[in-house]
């Protein structure tokens, strides 16, 4: 199997996998980064969202041979100090107590973080646009909206 070297959370990682292996399964199974979740495999739910050069994308649709030198960031690498969960979106998520079952939350957080990086004070319409691709079955949408606004204001509700 061919070897691929990709940048994940700022570290160069080399994996030996088939060229069509989705980035999602490389992260989860080869690199042990299980915070990125599988939900549909067809880009419909975004539970698997990661940042690729800062854009939130479904990692289930990105083949390993197409990653190239783009920078991959996962939920494990979102905060500068991961043990403190210091990213404003994570802090806001804890303040609002967003998660229920939690399965979709990495995808929600990565998508919200990408939105706020580009649009620091999004309107409700901009939040609708950015967050609607990410499915949640538990009904955390209302709290996500509150948390995105809180994060935009620096992590306070």
């Amino acid at each position, binding site marked *: *199997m061919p070897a691929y070297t990709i940048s994940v959370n700022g570290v160069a990682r080399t994996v030996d996998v*088939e060229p*069509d*292996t*989705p980035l999602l*399964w490389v992260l*989860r*199974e*080869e690199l*042990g*980064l*299980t*915070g990125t*979740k*599988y*939900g*549909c*495999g*067809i880009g*419909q*739910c975004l*539970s698997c969202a990661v940042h690729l050069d800062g854009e939130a994308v479904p990692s289930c649709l990105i083949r390993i041979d197409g990653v190239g030198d783009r920078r991959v960031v*996962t*939920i*494990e690498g*979102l*905060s500068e100090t*991961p043990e*403190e*969960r210091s990213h404003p979106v*994570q802090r806001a*998520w*804890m303040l609002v*107590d*967003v*998660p*229920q*079952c*939690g*399965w979709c*939350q*990495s995808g929600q*957080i990565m998508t919200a973080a990408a939105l706020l990086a580009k649009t620091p004070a999004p309107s409700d319409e901009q*939040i*609708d646009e950015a*967050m*609607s*691709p*990410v*499915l*949640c*079955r*538990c*009904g*955390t*949408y*209302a*709290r*996500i*909206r509150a948390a995105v606004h809180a994060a935009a204001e620096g992590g306070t509700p």
Partner: protein
Amino acid sequence: MSGRSLTRRHFLEVTGGAGAGLVLAFHLPGARRLAAATSEQPVLLNAWIRIGTDESVTFLVSESEMGQGVLTSMSMLLAEELSVDWSGVRAVHAPADRKAYGRQSTGGSTSVRTNYERLRVAGAAAREMLVSAAAAAWGLPAAECRAQQGRVVHGASGRSVTYGAVADAAAALEPPSDPALRPPSEFTLIGTRVPRIDTPPKVDGAAAFGLDVSMPGMLTALVARPPAFGGSVKRFDPGPALAVPGVRRVVEIPAGVVVAADSFWSAKKGRDALDVEWEPGPLGPLSDERIREICREKAGEGRTARDDGDVEAALASAATRLEAVYEVPYLAHATMEPMNCTADVRPDGCDIWTGTQAQTSAQDIASEITGLPVERIRVRTMMLGGGFGRRSRNDFVREAVHASKALGAPVKVVFTREDDMRAGSYRPVAWNQLSAGLDEAGRPIAWEHRIASPSILRDLGARLENGIDATAVESAGNLPYAIPNLRVTYADPELPVPVHFWRSVGNSQNVYVTECFLDELAEAAAADPVEFRVGLLAEHPRRVRALRRAAETAGWGRALPAGHGLGCAVSECFGSVIAQVAEVAVADDGSVRVPRVVCAVDCGSVVNPDTIEAQMESGVVYALSATLFGKISIADGGAVEGNFDDHPILRFRDMPRVETVIIAEGDPIGGIGELGVPALAPAVCNAVFAATGRRVRRLPIGQVAIPG
């Protein structure tokens, strides 16, 4: 081989030491992380409470966390009585252990109801043991000492000692038989908005779910299952699958053909390549149309679940008669984490890692397959990426145990989204034939409800008492409205499509059917839907109170924009009462939007108001997806929908504003995990009627046909 076994044993020791389940990072900021393997064993004071010499307090929760907040609520009950600093508390899933916990099954909105006393007693008993141990060490009477936030203190002398220092001595004491519980007036946790204990690991990816399990030597397997329900393998050739790089083994198990590989992707490609032919299901090319016919025919042959007065005579004498048929489809649970289970079957024992709602049933299943006694079946409950009833089925446990037994290695069976959606275990279809009669004053005098719906209990192997599945008639057989002549019948069309508990079970369809048909009666009586209900609920003051609160909060009767309507429904289930008022907006093209839902919830007493609000938001979203789009279609004997492209669920932009009013007037504590679901569909459909004059008698709504 021996090398691998050693590694596996080491893995088990590190992750499953002291019967504690996996040592996962469910800790709050500021709390110290317990090392995976401590040199000094923490002390188990009873089945729920473990205190470390490092002062760590760990609660072992025997219920499954699937988003409903059970790790938090159970810990609140324990911590309230134990008297510990909440910020230092950790909670983990308890191992399966029926001697310690009884039957472990999380469902029926029972966790808080069952444990409200039991866990407070456990907390209080542990507290008294710690106090006694400290008092004995000091040579002082226990009555002069008290527990305070993780310490035992003796006020008069100013002496104090930590729980961790006396935990060993306390554990040696006989537990008190009747420990003193705190009076509710002294509660500092129960009734307050305690933050969820599992939020931190769910915002940084650390929370470990079933699908995240990995261990040395483990194979990842996909199962090729028959496309038709009740079908079976006719023949298969493992060759093409084995030719895929990374595929290791291909074996048949009762559920189908297992393709086991080094990775998910190899297993998937191997299964795609598998050469297999299938036998059809027992009813041949079963379809939605055929299922409707079978149900319609069966409805006339139902067994009587309730028969008050003389329905025939009352219908014959009625001034106004109404007839309607209401239909609901099969529904998938569609948890965001697809089903999965990891099993390791060895000659001396079997280990299982999975997100299950039914731990002791998982033990029974594995025991039956392996021939091992249940004490040798260790079940570790992982976080559940949604449950909604689906994860009590344990079909995934059965498959993983069979696969590991056949392959002689640890195996993780993974369902793809399509596997999950098409695996059955659906909320059953139901065909409902309704007749009612009103007298000249518009009072209902007769109500007949004939239900045909496949039986969940029969599907699970239970024998139906008098031919009636109690879960299929809940909220129909016990219709609360004062109607003197009332009959409810039930028939079980025995179809090969597996059916299972789906959040709120029979209430999920019967509250829709009865609350919508009652709305039709109100219309025929030219009465206001809220007042019409209230007039028939003299014996049910809690329902009346909830209805009034919901109506008042929603502004019932106010002027609305064109195309908007308000609808109400009320339901009593799981020991609680809920009334909901939905506002809908129907566009010119007939598409339905729901901008707002008010929930008035009477659950007797409150453990955590924030959890109640979250569960109402959750129930509303879950039920709204079902009401607007939810449906599993059957064609050629199998399920049609497979993924979120052809089976949509509600998206962010369509989330209604959910407002929850909590009523807690001291009635016995009720459940809340399923409560938000049953009344939502009828509230929405009644609102669609208010907006358009069109009744919705078949779900999902899809588009409403706009008249003219």
